[in-house]
């Protein structure tokens, strides 16, 4: 097996055996989707809450795997000197990063395969769907969130990184138009929300799957900026040991 293949297998093995990561990448998105669809407490503005919720939950799934799961795992690998040790093998940093990116995409593929049928069961119906746009936005979102996750993982100590990733996840979830529509947020928060990658991702995803985004252009630009700038900062500030 090639070095890249071996590392990818190891990354996937570690994710699949880590119950916290499974809870984060699959458990929480499924729970939120099902709970808020069945319990009518959110002002989703539609008779079928799944119609509003599913695109947001898919965005949340991207954020969970690309930012929190990747960031926490990488942060601990850094503090346990795993990254340093791997740096002394023929794998090299480029293939290590590539293995991590491919493993994130594999997890995202599993998330989509699990979440879409649940969405359909709950009443989500795709309308005016644009699958190439959805795939493109997943790509951009992955780049943006992986960049943010690695900025934290590469600069903070293991435990602090863990807390920061989880805290940020919560903020982006609540302010990102994922489960609470942006119109429901107070005006100052709404302004902040427009600049967040989670808001942009959820908005473009909603446009790609159900149509009806009011600010597609702005969201695409915001997401594109995050997708370029965050990885660049990560490359600059990341410390391997």
């Amino acid at each position, binding site marked *: *097996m*090639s*070095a890249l*293949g*071996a*590392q990818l*297998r*190891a990354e996937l*093995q*570690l994710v699949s*055996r*880590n119950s916290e990561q499974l809870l984060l990448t699959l458990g929480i998105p499924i729970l939120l989707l099902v709970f808020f669809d069945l319990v009518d407490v959110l002002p989703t503005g539609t008779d079928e809450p799944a119609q509003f919720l599913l695109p947001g939950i898919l965005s949340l799934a991207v954020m969970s795997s690309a930012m929190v799961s990747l960031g926490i795992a990488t942060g*601990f*690998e850094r503090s*346990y*000197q*795993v990254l*340093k*040790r*791997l*740096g*002394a*093998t*023929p*794998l*090299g940093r480029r293939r290590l990063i590539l293995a991590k990116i491919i493993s994130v995409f594999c997890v995202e593929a599993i998330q989509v395969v699990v979440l879409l049928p649940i969405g359909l069961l709950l009443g989500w119906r795709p309308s005016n769907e644009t699958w190439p746009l959805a795939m493109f936005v997943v790509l951009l979102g992955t780049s943006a969130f992986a960049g943010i996750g690695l900025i934290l993982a590469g600069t903070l100590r293991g435990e602090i990184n863990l807390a920061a990733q989880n805290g940020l996840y919560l903020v982006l979830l609540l302010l990102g138009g994922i489960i609470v529509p942006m119109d429901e947020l107070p005006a100052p928060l709404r302004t902040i929300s427009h600049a967040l990658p989670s808001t942009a991702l959820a908005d473009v995803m909603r446009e790609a799957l159900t149509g009806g985004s009011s600010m597609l252009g702005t969201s695409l630009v915001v997401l594109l900026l995050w997708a370029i700038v965050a990885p660049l900062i990560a490359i600059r500030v990341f410390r391997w*040991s």
Partner: protein
Amino acid sequence: MVENLVVRYGDICAVNDVSFEARCGQVTAILGPNGAGKTSAIEVCEGFRQSSSGQVRVLGLHPIRDHDQLTKRMGVMLQGSGVYPSGRVKDVVKLFCDLYGKRCNANELIALVGLEDRQQHTWKRLSGGEQQRMSLALALAAQPEVVFLDEPTSGVDVDGRLIIRQVIGKLAQNGCAVVMATHELAEAEKVADQLVIFDHGHIAAAGTITELRHGHEYTRFTSDEGIDIADLSRALGCSVTATTNTGEYNIEVLSTPAVIAVLSSWLHDQNLPLHNVTSLESLEDMFSRIVASSGRQN
């Protein structure tokens, strides 16, 4: 090969103008107190750290510029873990075998370090000594021509030390250059062909154990506490001193038959016992002497 190596962290000079060579087929032990600069020097050789000045070549390669080539031929055992805490022994060893792509057999490596019955255990469930042996197995996955071992026997039990010693000996036998940084003087004495003693970023002494002991041989014996040292010194014609251990004495000459004869006769006349006659400077004493003398020079 390390020539005039300097490693600075801001104003602090961790390694100051250090030169030494580790030869293939030999075990070179780098000894020194905490903060002496051992790990910094090794990290430059491994390519983890940039030197401030000086020249370092490992297997003729520059550790950073030629890192890709070097990693294929170099084994590394870090001080600390360097392993996925939730990775299983078998999976991680197999991963490293695949990363080096040298068709080494993970099961054989695991058996070599005596972890057959721990294959399904995760790293975090292993004892400290078992973790060290697993780290050694990962270094061996490289089938290395040069291997850097940072504190390989730290926290390892007696059986584990024996295994690690055997593996190190076998590596050297097969022509590998083994470089190990350690605090464990007894271990170094058992496996090292060459010692490099660091102190405050300098090399305080380097050479084989015999070379470093030269001129510092003595005879040590134990008897009852409080013997008449002055009278014994007169009988032997050389200086006798009591060591810090109760009832232990140093005669500052080698234990020739003549010296032993005079000592035995004198103790017999005084009706005193004679135990544990040794005639070499222990590595611990040698280390203390060299570090103390280096401290005086600094």
